[in-house]
């Protein structure tokens, strides 16, 4: 990388707001030719938003972008691709029913009109070798591949294009060590060819291994880029956090009752080894780790949403059979998934009816729903979660993210839960609603419910939990009361295992 070379990409004054949420506030971003620029920052800090702006998925409210000195208008994915920008996304862009070879040419602007299998397969082999997949039969259909192979294929797809700027969005989340080595080698090769790489990651080790510079995002703002060789791990962590815990999180009562939920010797797909967990009444247990760490898999297993391979779960001392959500609900296990749009809310249905959906049976007699009872219970749940009572008839899909999340969590109050499992409780939620959700979780907890929160936001886990357990690549790495953690310890534990 030539330090004095003009910028390959320069973004100035980028702002993007969603209602009350400032995803990006006056962000400046700069990229040189032939360099690998790492993007670091906690969830919600703005990394993925700036990536979406550059790739044309989001149009910023203000700001300008130039590529190689020329101003560009990145108003669509096609425009961004025309400007020479390619993205290796977190969500896959391969079609499972088609073969590897076909997926490599799918949608590419220079693709031929005639697709002879032989030619496609030969072409595929050479591209696959560049990501270390030379043993992969290009005739296989993509839905037979492992997640790791699919991720490498996604990278291979991008290599097939001839982009000037390539963005990698957390490409190694599901990969093994050997596969990560291949990815990093591919990235280095791209930079050596004179292309510019933006590398978004949570793994500090990778940053120090391949990045030339790093831009750190915090609260929607970006720091000026720094040379990696001038930085240490401690300094990076310092730059990433530095938010005061402040009054966002309610006070802890530190009064714990008996154990309400115990997992003993639990074996779950995606986790190596056995899980042992205990949550007491009145306690908030925080599980944290990045994508693929295993925290989410545990939640799904305990809630009955995913398989339990072996081991047992005890509720108030009694072993329970956790197959299927229905059983879990009857026994008082409430579960909020991380993706409320997918399975947390009914977007086309009113707030009141969303709130009552898990406990309708309780307010029905002989199959007839008692509107009065439903209304009073729903009103109670709504006021508990600071949901505007005048909006009980509004469709949940028309509420802000914060209010939607309050409905997604609040609806479980009515089943009188013994344990509440919440994943990513404040994803896509503004500060105000976040504080309200935290307050309610604490109140719920104080009333004798055991709460398990799984989140990739270390600040949130630290502020909210009584006990914190960390996960990394499928194993539990620590489980200590919150007083024994500092934020930099936590960040380091979660992100930087290799020394």
């Amino acid at each position, binding site marked *: 990388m030539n330090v004095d070379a003009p910028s390959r990409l320069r973004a100035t004054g980028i702002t993007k707001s969603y209602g009350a949420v400032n995803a990006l506030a006056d962000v400046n971003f700069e990229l040189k030719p032939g360099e690998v620029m790492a993007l670091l920052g906690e969830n919600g800090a703005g990394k993925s938003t700036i990536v979406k702006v550059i790739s044309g998925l989001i149009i910023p409210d203000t700001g300008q972008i130039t590529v190689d000195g020329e101003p560009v208008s990145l108003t669509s994915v096609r425009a961004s691709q025309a400007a020479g920008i390619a993205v290796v996304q977190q969500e896959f862009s391969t079609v499972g029913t*088609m073969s590897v070879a076909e*997926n490599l040419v799918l949608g590419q602007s220079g693709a031929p009109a005639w*697709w002879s299998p032989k030619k496609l397969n030969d072409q595929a082999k050479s591209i696959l070798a560049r990501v270390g997949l030379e043993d992969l039969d290009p005739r296989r259909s993509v839905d037979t591949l492992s997640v790791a192979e699919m991720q490498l294929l996604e990278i291979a797809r991008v290599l097939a294009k001839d982009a000037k700027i390539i963005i990698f969005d957390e490409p190694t989340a599901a990969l093994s060590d050997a596969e990560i080595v291949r990815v990093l080698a591919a990235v280095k090769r791209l930079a050596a060819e004179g292309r510019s790489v933006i590398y978004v990651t949570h793994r500090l080790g990778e940053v120090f291994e391949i990045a030339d510079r790093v831009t750190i995002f915090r609260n929607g703002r970006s720091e000026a880029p720094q040379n990696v060789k001038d930085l240490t791990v401690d300094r990076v962590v310092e730059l990433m956090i530095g938010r005061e815990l402040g009054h966002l999180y309610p006070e802890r009562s530190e009064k714990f009752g008996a154990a309400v939920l115990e997992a003993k010797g639990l074996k779950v797909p995606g986790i190596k080894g056995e899980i042992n967990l205990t949550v007491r009444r009145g306690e908030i247990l925080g599980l944290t780790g990045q994508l693929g760490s295993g925290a989410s898999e545990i939640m799904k297993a305990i809630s009955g949403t995913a398989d339990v391979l072996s081991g047992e779960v005890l509720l108030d001392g009694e072993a329970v059979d956790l197959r299927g959500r229905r059983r879990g609900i009857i026994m008082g296990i409430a579960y909020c998934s991380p993706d409320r749009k997918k399975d947390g809310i009914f977007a086309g249905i009113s707030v009141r009816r969303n709130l009552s959906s898990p406990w309708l049976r309780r307010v029905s007699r002989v199959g007839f729903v008692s509107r009065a009872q439903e209304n009073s219970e729903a009103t109670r749940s709504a006021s508990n979660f600071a949901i505007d009572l005048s909006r009980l008839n509004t469709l949940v899909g028309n509420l802000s993210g914060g209010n939607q999340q309050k409905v997604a969590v609040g609806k479980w109050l009515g089943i009188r839960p013994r344990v509440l499992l919440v994943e990513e409780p404040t994803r896509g939620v503004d500060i105000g609603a976040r504080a309200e959700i935290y307050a309610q979780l604490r109140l719920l907890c104080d009333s004798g419910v055991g709460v398990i929160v799984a989140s990739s936001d270390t600040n949130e886990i630290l502020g909210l939990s009584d006990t914190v357990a960390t996960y990394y690549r499928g194993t539990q790495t620590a489980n200590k009361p919150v007083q024994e953690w500092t934020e930099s310890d936590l960040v380091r534990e979660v992100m930087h295992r290799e020394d």
Partner: protein
Amino acid sequence: MSSVGAWFKTYLLQIIVLILVLVSMYGLNPNFHVESSIERLIPLGVIAAGLAVTMIAGEFDLSIASMAAFSGAVAVALSGLGLLVSVIIAIVVGILLGMLQGWAIAKLGINSLVFTVGTLILLRGMTWLVCNGLAIRVDDITATDMFKVKIGFLTSLSIAGLVVIIGLGIFLSRTRWGRELYALGGGRHEAIAAGVRYNRGMIVAFGISGGCGALGGALVSAKGGSADPSALGVMLVAALSAVLVGGISLAGGRGTMVSAFLGFAIIAMLSAGRAGLGTKAFVSELFIGLLLLVVVLFDYFLSFVSERDRRNKLRKLAAAAA
């Protein structure tokens, strides 16, 4: 796995059913001729092919049978210009109308099932308008003779139909536009994220569907020299059954022209066979329905078993690692 073996395995179920039907038809009726039964119903095959294309793209064109009826009417109504000319005009009109449907569905973002329910009624109405409510005939019946010229056991019309079906097969398996239809059907979000153009895909898929519907209808009218406003009413169910029995998935992204043709062959033999036996039409409908249910349940059973095997494998792995 050798490609011949793989090919065989994909179509195994259909081939077995086909052989069973063939054997039983011959067994029940010594006068049964498989070639003529298939030949007579080539129009159904063409319509099934068109239906298969939209299904592969993850959509539904319920209006295809009505398009066939409409085309037949147009071909006969314009036969004064020369039957061959009017047939070609009818087919072109079908393609254009189909493309219009595809464009509308893409632009509106509307569910194709819902939209084509409306257009199926609309096209049927247009058929009635063209026919003025009565069955219409060509003025000069000898004009149809050129379509009845036989080469082997196939008429020139049937050959045209077969050529189109084969052409579609090549289109779907070897061309970029054809493969993009599979992508749109097999993983729409992913395909669009990869850069496949959704609007173009819809216009192509529905244009082909309209064209096939038109071709099928024109074939029937050209051979018979007449068109009837209420004709081809059962075509939709027959075509749908052919496509599903052949193994084209409702979810989209799977199946080939070979599947559609196999399914069509099975249905054609069933229909022709029972006609040869002198039994009523409903008998073959009954069997077609049963067949459909069997194929669909079998598919479900297969996926159920593979899911259960996967779980057991995971359990064994977990126990072994303990």
